[in-house]
């Protein structure tokens, strides 16, 4: 394995990892707000991708507007889920909302199948199909651009939670709903916001991957699983943990596929996850109980 090949594998891993990070952030934000793990997160990513496909390929919008359509469409679905599932089930055993989100996942996929069909859809390359060559690493310009967008989203989230009033209010709600409510924070509005942001991030992830891979209604299953793994990997509930988990998982699975065995790529990634959880049960950056 030459150094440039290794660099190539790591770059591809970081790009995938950025998408996993968006998913992991979605899981983390919703978990912090309501203690819910949304198993339809991957299918919301798929919705972002198919909305993006409709906007870009069928409506001929430019790529910026495509983003807006994908993100807002996904966020709207997040709000709907908040209204139909998360809020009514708040205070019930967590298993109830788990089952409900699995149901939502099946429903979303079925609707996707009916509207967009079972065949993969071809999303044309956004910034040309001529790869750049940087120090022996061959990469499409769009890859770099997607990476930048994903990093910007992550940075914006960090800034939002650290510096804005609303962001602080959401963190306060995450720490203690009752105390936050007593301080006059509109807790229910925070829940809705968390649902919308969480789904919107997945929607952005969906639009970002659409030109890299094909768009298909089954694409959410594995993306959701990997995003969840990344969130657990870094420590569920921790935002820096989601970033570390996402990029770590992306790079680890690509390296293991290259250095160990491509056939067992997913298996190796999940074995690493198991080992880490064995060593640190609350994840790399999770708060230990």
């Amino acid at each position, binding site marked *: 394995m030459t150094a440039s090949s290794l660099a190539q594998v790591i770059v591809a891993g970081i790009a995938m990892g950025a998408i996993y990070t968006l998913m992991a952030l979605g899981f983390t934000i919703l978990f912090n707000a309501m203690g819910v793990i949304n198993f339809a997160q991957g299918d919301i990513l798929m919705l972002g991708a198919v909305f993006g496909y409709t906007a870009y390929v069928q409506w001929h919008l430019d790529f910026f507007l495509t983003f807006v359509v994908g993100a807002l469409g996904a966020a709207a679905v997040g709000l709907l889920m908040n209204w139909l599932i998360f809020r009514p089930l708040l205070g019930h055993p967590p298993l109830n909302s788990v089952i409900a989100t699995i149901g939502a996942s099946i429903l979303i996929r079925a609707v996707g199948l009916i509207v967009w069909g079972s065949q993969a859809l071809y999303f044309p390359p956004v910034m040309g199909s001529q790869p750049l060559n940087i120090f022996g690493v*061959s990469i499409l310009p769009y890859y770099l651009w997607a990476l930048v967008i994903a990093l910007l989203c992550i940075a914006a989230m960090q800034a939002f939670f650290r510096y804005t009033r609303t962001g602080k209010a959401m963190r306060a709600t995450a720490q203690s709903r009752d105390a936050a409510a007593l301080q006059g924070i509109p807790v229910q509005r925070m829940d809705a916001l968390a649902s919308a942001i969480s789904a919107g991030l997945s929607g952005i992830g969906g639009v970002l991957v659409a030109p890299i*891979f094909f768009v298909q209604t089954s694409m959410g299953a594995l993306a959701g699983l990997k995003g969840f793994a990344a969130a657990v990997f870094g420590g569920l509930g921790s935002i820096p943990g989601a970033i570390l988990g996402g990029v770590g998982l992306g790079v680890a699975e690509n390296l293991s596929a290259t250095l160990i065995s491509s*056939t067992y790529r*997913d298996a190796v990634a999940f074995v690493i996850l198991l080992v880490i959880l064995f060593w640190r049960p609350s994840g790399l950056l999770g708060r230990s109980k």
Partner: protein
Amino acid sequence: MRRISGITLAGTVALAASLLLAGCGGAASGSQGNGASASSKAPITIGVFGPLSGSLAVAGQHQLDGATYAADLINAKGGADGHQIRIVSGDTQGVPADATSVVNRFIYQDHVTALLGSPNSPEVLAILNLDKKAKVVLLDPSGVAMAITQSGDPYVFRIVATDKIFSQKLVDYALQTLKFKKIAVLYDTSDYGQGGEQLVTAELKAAGVQPVTVQGYNDNTNDFTSQLLAIKNAGAQAIILWGLYTQGAEILHQMQTLGMHTQVLASTGVTIGNFFQLAGSAANGMIGATAGYSPLRTDATAQNFIHAFQAKMHYVPDLNDVLAYDAVNVLAKAVETAHSTNEAKIRAALAGIQNYPGVGGPITFQKNGDGGTAALLFRVENGKEQLLP
């Protein structure tokens, strides 16, 4: 509780009965009685089963069209050994369980002489036991699963060439025609891909070539960077790719991204579905395999068939039409040889068929029932398939 009135009850029963009848599906179609009155011998019934609704409906409809077309031609010439051929059909909806009920009906109600189906291998696998028990000849025109002829059912006869033929053809082309020595194998880890990988490595080994690397991928992978780089680093001149079309197209796109120009030779699964739409220009230069018939064939046999078929059915026949057509003709030939409609005698006559000149290529039945021997290779140029000599 309110009493159910007699009328409601009767209505419900009638509705239920009609639903049940509709559920049995299918109908005798097409070719019965076309000029049949001349013949005094009892007709032969062929039960054609396959998906006529659902996502595989096109394949099933073409199979039925091909079989009906063949029966009409044979009947117009006086039948097979004087027996008119009657086609009955049943819709399986692509569901193996439905295939068993359709086939049960064929065997025990329609008393068919032969079964014909299905493009969907799992349906064929599901009915093998029924067929074996009833000792009815089963013609499998296009179901490609290797397991179909490994089941030990002596009544199974397959028309289409299997992956063994395709792997031979692809390996041969890479080694003999293109004179490559460094071959990589890339396969998906499903039954289909794994089966292909084993056949390809065995073929290579038989030619004294060790693949430079063998790389697998799961059926949910969409980033193939590590596999492709391993192949690049191994210095491969060609990749033999065994998988399905969506991932196949993705692999070609990613090779383009990585600036790889390694020759790709792909299994039949890669170039079906909406492959050409997905792969676009990334497919240019690749070589693919397909069964012995393609509408692109320019030889007289294929062209004459296409013209005659098109005149009657108003579309260009595809592989499923041709394979079902050949299947019915092979059966007619066996009936003529056997001079009988006795199942055991027809079976024996079929087993003895050698080099039958089918439209989709010569058919020679081996002991396990595999009969297809022909495969074609094509190169993709400007998004279009060009058959290789």
